[in-house]
């Protein structure tokens, strides 16, 4: 069988890509097209967790409703009680120098 010149084969593939309307990319260069072609995943990602009613959201959206969130009230009460007994969260450091991390022994 007679060998075909590489330039002829290249011309054939170019012609083929024109006829079938495919992209002509003989050096297999990366075009980044896959990042544009791929479907967007965000919309389906957002729908994963079912929407749940929350009292804080209701109060925020409907002004003047003022529902009482017993769970949150209890939590805040517990925090206040702990603080009264001196068991509250430590004060935030104003600078990096007086942070508790800096005082720690190594």
């Amino acid at each position, binding site marked *: 069988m007679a060998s075909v010149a590489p330039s002829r084969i290249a011309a054939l593939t170019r012609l083929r890509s024109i006829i079938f309307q495919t992209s002509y990319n003989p050096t297999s*260069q*990366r*075009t*980044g*097209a896959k*990042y*544009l072609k*791929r479907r*967007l*995943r*965000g*919309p389906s*990602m*957002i729908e*994963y*967790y*079912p929407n*749940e009613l929350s009292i804080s959201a209701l109060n925020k959206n409907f002004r003047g409703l003022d529902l009482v969130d017993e*769970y949150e009230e209890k939590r805040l009460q517990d925090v206040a009680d702990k603080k009264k007994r001196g068991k509250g969260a430590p004060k935030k450091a104003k600078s990096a120098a007086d942070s508790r991390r800096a005082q720690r022994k190594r």
Partner: protein
Amino acid sequence: MPPRPNARVLRDIKARKGVADNEISRRAYLYVARNQSLPAQVRYQAQLQLNTFGRYTRPTTVKNRCTETGRGRGVMGEFGLCRFQFRMKALAGELPGVQKASW
């Protein structure tokens, strides 16, 4: 009241929202940065821009957690439930088409 979502679920919701909000611009930068036919300087700038996006804009930070308990391991993708919640619900007949195997 249903059980409150724990902090890890809240973080995951934040990540999902971040991914959805930034997906299009991230894709555009990815396209430029990965396109070998563009000048190297342009691609480099696009890559620098990609690096400025926050942690919770990357789709890999999103994890499918149990929608009932927020458990991160042993979650069945088809139901979005962890293995124990799956068992409970299946035995209670709340999952259509799922029944206990017996032979």
